[in-house]
């Protein structure tokens, strides 16, 4: 059964950056946009498994550090012409605390 869990403070994630959350089923990447939205994706690029958390965040996208795929943070979908998807986790910020539905 999934439930919301408090993970960290918003300020623990750099703006236009990411933080890794260790999880038994595989790391999760928590991204923070310029306007303080937070998104969560499995930290594994659909291309060759690159750690998305290490990429460059721009707009609501992240560029994978290994071969430059762009993924939409909102859905985890790769941007055209690439095809693939990183699993998305619901995330929100409440009173400066980041919550993740796991």
């Amino acid at each position: 059964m999934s439930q919301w869990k408090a993970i960290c403070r918003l300020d623990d994630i750099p703006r236009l950056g990411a933080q890794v959350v260790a999880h038994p089923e595989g790391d999760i990447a928590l991204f923070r946009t310029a306007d303080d939205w937070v998104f969560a994706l499995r930290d594994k690029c659909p291309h060759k498994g690159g750690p998305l958390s290490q990429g460059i965040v721009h707009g609501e996208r992240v560029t994978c550090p290994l071969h430059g795929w762009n993924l939409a943070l909102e859905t985890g979908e790769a941007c055209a012409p690439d095809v693939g998807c990183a699993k998305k986790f619901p995330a929100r910020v409440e009173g400066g605390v980041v919550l993740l539905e796991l």
Partner: protein
Amino acid sequence: MAKQKLVLIGNGMAGVRTLEEVLKLAPEQYDITVFGAEPHGNYNRILLSPVLAGEMQVQDIILNDLDWYAEHGITLHVGKRVTQIDRIGRKVIAADGTSAEYDRLLIATGSQPFILPVPGKDLPGVIGYRDIADTQVMIDTAASKQHAVVIGAGLLGLEAANGLILRGMDVTVVHLGEWIMERQLDKTAADMLQASLEAKGMKFRLAHQTAELLPAADGRVGAVKFKNGEEIPADLVVMAAGIRPDTALAEAAGLHCNRGIVVSDTLQTITDPRIYAVGECAAHRGIAYGLVAPLFDQAKVCANHLAQMGIARYQGSVTSTKLKVTGIDVFSAGDFMGGEGTEAILLHDRSGGVYKKLVLKDNTLVGAVMYGDTVDGSWYFQLLREGKDLGELRDHLMFGQSYASSHLGDTGHAGASSAASLPDSAQVCGCNGVCKGSIVKAIQEKGLFTLDEVKKHTKAASSCGSCSGLVEQILASTLGGAYQAVDTTKKAICGCTDHNHGEVRQAIREQKLLSIPQVMATLEWKTPNGCATCRPALNYYLVSTWPHEAQDDPQSRFINERAHANIQKDGTYSVVPRMWGGLTTPAELRAIADAAEKYQVPTVKVTGGQRIDLLGVKKEDLPKMWEDLNAAGMVSGHAYGKSIRTVKTCVGAEHCRFGTQRSMDLGVKLEKMLFAMWSPHKVKLAVSGCPRNCAESGIKDVGIIGVDAGYEIYVAGNGGIKTEVAHFFCKAKDDAEVMEISGAFLQLYREEGWYLERTVHYVSRVGLDYVKAQVVDDQENRKALHERLLYALQGEPDPWAEITQGPRRKEFIPITLVA
């Protein structure tokens, strides 16, 4: 100073290419006005054939749309034919009275189709094949009429005939000569070509002379009558019997013409040095060229002269020919007929449909003609232009480049044109695993023409970019004459902006912009916070232009520079401690060994840069490992950065029996001077103690070689993707002078280089002479540059220590979930 006025007559391929080159070299020098008789912007005339064949649309072949002229502040008069050049008043006047004054005039009026002087030549339905209008007439006529006659079986005539057949017409090609394309092919190749065109339905009348064109009842052309009395029906007659340089205007202005407007090696008319001529209208050393490659060479030289650089000379071109009929491969170049004093190597497989003839003179290649299998065309063409003695290559020549190079090792042409001979299964882009076959397929099926399009659709060359050159060759060999290499110097940085690197650098410097958001606001970025291409570039431009003032933004750096370590394919990292000049001590080696054991490093490797790499480290272990190495006195090696990498040294006069200078000592001093230097791309140096050059100084960004009297400095070498030998820069008398000159050179590169441009690319863009003038000749400037470098690097901390002791350390540690 008021700008000078440059007027171009003829809005075609050669003229506009010259303008593009001028804008690149001297964007501010001229107010430019263009007159074009056709009602369009500049388009790729070559591609009229694919348009006629229905393989492309008119909008696909536009090279410079009207926005381009507006963007560059060029006044464009489309649909206006210039009818007079007033050389005394220095102005040109068009048919409708529009006039423009000039300081310099460029004539690029191209050619006119040669119309046979036979009765009936003016009947409706008789046309040449030159422009969009002619092509449209053919397309329209094909929709309602049946019989077409093409006069002339040259390149143009056959492409016209092929297009008309594809549009459903019944086409006869009439030719005066004994065989088709006799100026490009020998009889054997021509016969094979003719047979395959006949298989497509094309009919031929060879050795036939046209006597008269007869009208039909409706007043249009109706039939062609030959000298022998025979008549064939013709609703459309396309005259493709040759072209004549369009010199009427120039002649009327008193410019000397002789089969073209006569020009010198600087493309100035010999009559009036203010007036230049390029393209098919110009006659250089007695030749008026009719293909674009030589015209583009002319454009380069002419622009160089217009920009008052005045160094380039046009020496004439060797041309090669390809026929653009899909599914048929023909190639010829040079003296393919052979004759007195030449010998030919032949391969003729009639049923396989392959014919190759190579003509040799004094053991050099002077001509080639091929039918059926033309993959090696560009290789032969290169050998032919170089005119080198073939040596042992001769025995393998006929079997093509891949065979010859696999049997002779690198013949000095490796990579230059190997794309065509690669099998479809060969992997081209190692990063994205894209093979040649899928690139070719995408080019053909999706109609791709540029490197950018190929990157988007196949991902090839979209990552490290090392295969871009190969992809461009594949584009060239797949598209043939339709391929136009893009000019990267004026390309926008990325899709987030219309500005190019040069403009952005200039704005940051002139308007003192200090942060990425400020640059984006000032230059009206189209995206809220850029992308992974522009942000790292902007970050570099800011920190290099305004050291100690602009804010460095880690989030705008590629992960390697953010984590101060190279990311590996499995998401682990590598650690490379600096070993100044490649020197180490037992204590350092012991500390490295301890760290490797403590953090269970799977691979320990000696790098090509004279130091040790610890590969496969978990990100969370990085700060701990750095602390241990810092404690042993070691700092970051920046093996991950667009930054100073290594200074390789040889043992030198310290130990070596040949050494003339203390290379280890100088290498260490240089590396310390440059510590923590960010740059447009990575920077590598080497110091060798004598000309035996054991530190490989000849392929470094800055290479130093000790000689008896001091040192020789070499710059802009590169040992990577494409090996480039460094240029000799200057001599230096002692260590202090080497440090000042190297520092000044690198500071110039840091201030003017574009992001991801290595010194080799920077120097070839701005010219070695320019760099020498700034650094070698102007001693004041050299000092100032060197001081700016030292100021920028002053107090730069070790990035490892900065992280282990600063707030960013927690970014390296994952958050763990508590149940």
